[in-house]
């Protein structure tokens, strides 16, 4: 299509004048684009919010963390090889700790059991871990102290309570520190409490736990020497992959696994989980964006529709404008600018409504409300484009009207 030169100030004046004369129709015309752009903005904001939320949840699991599990894990995630369930040992952990770029290692030994404190009792998960566990999991204490390597060496009967356990065993805000709890009838002294961590990404209450030295757990609770899992923390997120492959080759070597044979352990990389989650979020967002784009398109068609009606309604006006000296190009530009002004204003209004809507949704979903500026610019630019695209046909139609027919039009 060939566009003639535009005298913007006078065209804008003519177009704005025409729009102002038909204020309510102008507002109705804009509505489609307002809704479309608001939908786009909300979609983008939801997507960005969900992504941040997923990222922070996964971050909350631990810093640069790898999870080492005994037995192999097939693609579906179900464990195979019953004998493999007892393949991870303390010695494996000590060897892994010597690898380069490994910041910390903590074994975990879990026991689900009843715990008693005075008159209260509570069913919870006991985790035997190393002192580095709070570092690996990014999990600061709320009060008291965590156990030390010395406690591990001495298989000390000390425990640190999660928030849920604390409120159930010591209701009414009693200070649990220094008090004794019974785990399978073994008395443990509470030395500290953990800060609240909330639900995990799979909806599990992470605060429903008691942490004790892994040596104490093995010796006094399970009576075994093998571990449920091991947490390994890389010194930097960029080294996670390297640590993963080094741990793999180290354990294959230690467990005498020949090349090509299946491993008797598996490593889960939080980064992979994070990537999978954010990929899911991206697909969701793409879908929503598609819906939003369609509604914007519908808004554009609405503009074209009403501009066409407007051209018919204003046939006499067009004839008159030609009679008083308007060039066809001036008519074309007038209607095109009208459409673009409408769609751009609609876009701007949509950004405002979308912004308000995003904040409302984010508040409800307890997400950070993020409307990226690029999305705002893009939405407004795109709606302007919608105006050009859908405004051109009615404008061209207006500019081709025969002035005599137009002046006679009733």
């Amino acid at each position, binding site marked *: 299509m060939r566009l003639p030169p535009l005298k913007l100030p006078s065209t804008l004046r003519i177009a704005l004048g025409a729009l102002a004369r038909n204020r309510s129709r102008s507002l109705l015309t804009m509505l489609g684009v307002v809704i479309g752009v608001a939908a786009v903005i909300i979609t983008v904001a939801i997507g960005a919010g969900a992504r941040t939320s997923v990222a922070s949840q996964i971050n909350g699991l631990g810093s640069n963390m790898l999870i080492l599990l005994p037995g192999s894990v097939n693609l579906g995630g179900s464990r195979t090889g019953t004998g493999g369930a007892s393949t991870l040992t303390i010695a494996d952990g000590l060897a892994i700790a010597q690898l380069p770029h490994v910041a910390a290692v903590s074994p975990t030994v879990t026991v689900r059991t009843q715990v008693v404190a005075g008159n209260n009792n509570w069913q919870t998960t006991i985790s035997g871990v190393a002192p580095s566990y709070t570092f690996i999991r990014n999990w600061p204490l709320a009060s008291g102290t965590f156990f030390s390597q010395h406690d591990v060496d001495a298989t000390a009967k000390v425990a640190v309570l999660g928030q849920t356990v604390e409120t159930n065993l010591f209701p009414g805000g009693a200070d649990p520190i220094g008090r004794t709890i019974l785990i399978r009838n073994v008395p443990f002294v509470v030395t500290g409490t953990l800060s609240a961590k909330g639900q995990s990404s799979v909806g599990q209450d992470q605060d429903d736990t008691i942490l004790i030295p892994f040596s104490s757990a093995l010796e006094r609770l399970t009576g075994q020497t093998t571990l449920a899992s091991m947490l390994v923390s890389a010194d930097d997120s960029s080294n996670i992959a390297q640590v993963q492959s080094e741990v793999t080759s180290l354990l294959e070597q230690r467990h005498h696994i020949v090349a090509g044979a299946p491993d008797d352990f598996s490593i889960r990389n939080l980064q992979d989980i994070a990537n999978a989650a954010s990929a899911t979020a991206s697909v969701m967002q793409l879908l929503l964006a598609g819906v939003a784009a369609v509604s914007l398109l519908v808004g554009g068609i609405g503009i074209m529709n009403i501009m066409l009606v407007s051209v018919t309604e204003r046939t006499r006006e067009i004839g008159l404008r030609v009679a008083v000296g308007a060039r066809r190009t001036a008519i074309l530009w007038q209607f095109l600018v009208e459409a673009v002004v409408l769609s751009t204003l609609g876009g701007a209004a949509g950004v405002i409504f979308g912004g308000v809507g995003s904040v409302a949704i984010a508040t409800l979903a307890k997400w950070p409300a993020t409307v990226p500026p690029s999305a705002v610019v893009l939405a407004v630019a795109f709606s302007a484009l919608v105006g050009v695209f859908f405004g051109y046909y009615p404008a061209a139609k207006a500019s081709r009207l025969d002035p005599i027919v137009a*002046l006679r039009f009733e």
Partner: protein
Amino acid sequence: MATPVVAVRDLRRIYPLAGEPVVALAGIDLDIEAGEFVAVMGPSGSGKSTFMHIVGFLDRPTSGTYRFEGRDVTELSEDDLAGIRSRRLGFVFQAYNLLPRTTAVENVELPMLYAGVGEAERRTAALAALDEVGLSKQAFHRPNQLSGGQQQRVAIARSLVNNPSLILADEPTGALDTRASEDVMALFERLNHERGITIMLVTHEPDVAAHAKRIVTFRDGIILSDAPRAREAVTQ
């Protein structure tokens, strides 16, 4: 002798309809000199409006020549014609054709918008034109707040605001009562007499035509008579 404002020779306009072509103009020869006040009369369908549209470049002849102020119109582009129309021509229609919901002064400014006149100058000229047609007080009224006669005077102000050499009026009093018609015609006479604007006016009414200095009568697309004085037309 100076160049005529309008000079047509053997002008024809044929509408190529499906059945048989309609001959609206069947060979018109006419000169209109600067400063003339011409009334065009004739029965309905005789081609008056068609002729006026061609003279105002809203339509093109099927054949024949038309020179406007000496320039061959058939050789000019549509944009050139729009330019001439905005600077040299004024139109007045039977139905006024004012923009609705737009003040009188803004309606009068419209031709200047397309002629590229600056904002301040536009307003001054529009108010002066409204003053000239006696509507200073109604400058900021909208069409629906004006009587028919007042609306037609706004339309006349609009037609003269660009200082045209020729005003074309198609039955400008067709929708007005006698009193308002007289006002409008007096206005045309004054514009013609005092400002020297050439006027060509289509009308059915002998009373209206009597204000002109020359009466051209059409019939079946040709000129039946071309009489220089009004009285003869009245007695016709």
